């Protein structure tokens, strides 16, 4: 289901503002839409457009040289707040494949990994350097297989967990893997768990 992601080569957009939350990424009122498709146009909606649809000048994603960028260099706490996966679906559909930041909202980072979007945590000083490279218009080259980022004069290691890397490279779906590999482990665990906390099984919740 998920598109494999092996390599990204594009410009990057720098959004250093701390704590950009998932409400900013995807305002709640669009959560009433039940489709995953078509959400890209609501990305950062209220930062980019007034209520009547007039564009707001100056949002970095809308700069002329940011068009087609697949990478966001974010500030600390990127994606904090609500668990809404729409934030990730909207980023993905807009064309973003990678977010680099000093740290992330936990649920947001998990959601990225489930949708073929790389969220990688990097030291704050490196984020600043990469942000400067982004603003200088450098092309970023991110190799997920080799765990490497190159941007202008910078070459640095990409921080990505083994399981996330494998899922991205192969487009794996967690449910398939768990059902295929762990069915017996789950059954064995349930037998033990039922002995320890039988009330969780006997009581109809």
């Amino acid at each position: 289901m998920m598109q494999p992601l092996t390599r990204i080569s594009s410009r990057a957009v720098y959004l250093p503002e701390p704590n950009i939350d998932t409400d900013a990424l995807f305002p709640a009122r669009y959560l009433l839409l039940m489709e995953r498709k078509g959400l890209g146009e609501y990305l950062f909606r209220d930062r980019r457009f007034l209520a009547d649809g007039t564009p707001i000048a100056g949002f970095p994603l809308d700069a002329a040289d940011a068009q087609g960028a697949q990478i966001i260099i974010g500030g600390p706490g990127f994606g904090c707040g609500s668990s809404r996966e729409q934030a990730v679906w909207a980023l993905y559909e807009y064309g973003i494949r990678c977010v680099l930041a000093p740290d992330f909202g936990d649920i947001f980072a998990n959601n990225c990994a489930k949708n073929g979007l790389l969220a990688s945590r990097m030291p704050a000083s490196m984020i600043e350097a990469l942000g400067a490279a982004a603003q200088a218009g450098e092309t970023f080259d991110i190799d997920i297989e080799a765990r490497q980022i190159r941007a202008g004069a910078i070459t640095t290691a990409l921080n990505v967990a083994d399981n996330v890397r494998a899922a991205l490279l192969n487009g794996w779906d967690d449910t398939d893997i768990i059902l295929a590999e762990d069915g017996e482990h789950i059954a064995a665990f349930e037998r033990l768990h039922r002995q320890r906390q039988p009330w969780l099984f006997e009581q109809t919740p």
Partner: protein
Amino acid sequence: MTKNIGAPRTLYDKLWSSHVVRDYDDGTSLIYVDRHLLHEVTTPQSFVALDQGKRTIHRPASNLAVPDHAVPTEHRDQPIADPLARAQTERLTSNTSRYGLELIDLHDPRQGIVHIVGPEQGFTLPGIFLACGDSHTATHGAFGTLAVGIGASECAIVMATQCIRQVRSKTMRIDITGTPSEFICAKDIALAIIARIGANGASGHAVEYAGPVVEAMDMAARMTLCNMSIECGARAGFIAPDETTFAYLEGRPMAPKGENWKAAVAYWRTLASDPGAVYDRVETIDVSDLAPTITWGTSPEEALPVTARAPDPALEHNPARGARQQRALNYMGLTPDTALIGIRIDRAFIGSCTNGRIEDLRAAAAIARGRTVAAHVRAMVVPGSGLVKRQAEAEGLADIFRSAGFEWRDAGCSMCVAMNSDRLAPGERCASTSNRNFEGRQGPGGRTHLMSPAMVAAAAVSGCIVDVRTMGSA
């Protein structure tokens, strides 16, 4: 099985290790999920994933669904007017019936916010791992539950496999000490903690709240405290279960009964951190001198004592922080260095999974009693569940609110997330008991000041932000 072999363990260690199905080579673990709560907004796509994968639900009885986010809080006798909200609520009904999951629907007196309904029904129990497609799932940690918010994809994984893959968290203990003065409640403490450690300061950590102030708290206050854990970035927040917890749960519809109850309590008593257990980080907050705490900006970390003044970005050394402050002040329509007391409000909201319980309504009603909402303020009370609403009506709280000029509504998330018609107009300023003051959270352009229920009631009747401690008697 609780023989104390080896090193002393934290409560997190116990909750985690009793749910590890297996450890993978890469440092992640497969974790067993005992209970899964669903609501209408984050699950439609989860069911699509189940449909497309032709999955079955591993243990249907471990799931409980309730619509809360998008539902209207009035005219419940009529069909939902907003076609999108109606479709989403109907989708939850059809999905749960197709897969054989229990649903508490809109017309059920038990309907309410998922994090209020779970504990109320005894669906939430100590010692379990609970997941929900909602970031405030940590609320359930008040029961000694390991409770985490997950995304829509993970909801589908949980339903199909009863498991999720997780990385073990680092552990943090926050000791709350001292003697809080009158009117200082869990909300003030939570905001003070977030202001201290930052909106993402507990990232990667599971937080255990402990200390004498926590031990003395009732379950409502503990839920408020745990609820806000996500606002400092924590993956989970929880409190060791004790007699207060057991007394709350005993006799709840879905709680264990008879011999099962006795066995459960015996097990639950083992769920405390061992003396000498080591945490990755320990913080202590003394709340003796804590003033009512409110937010001035657009992140929950931008909180100050109500007696303080909004910051002046010109005095901020870190340029990114200064820019952030300036942006927040602009958005909030505040000039630098404004006194918080006296800021005029347009709206007041009492409700949400943070402060929508009966105890919260009592605290607000105690201030509203015999007073009148200021003429320029529109104020509403939205009980956290239908049962809370019924209880408040029985206690006479609803009459107090109504005669003071508050709107008295049906249960739901309402103006916490502004997915229904309960929302701020652009530029409107709201004193709110909810948990997020993000830009646009209560409606595009809306301005939110987070505070406790008593403080919101005080602001509503005063027409501006006030210090509830100086209200005097009505």
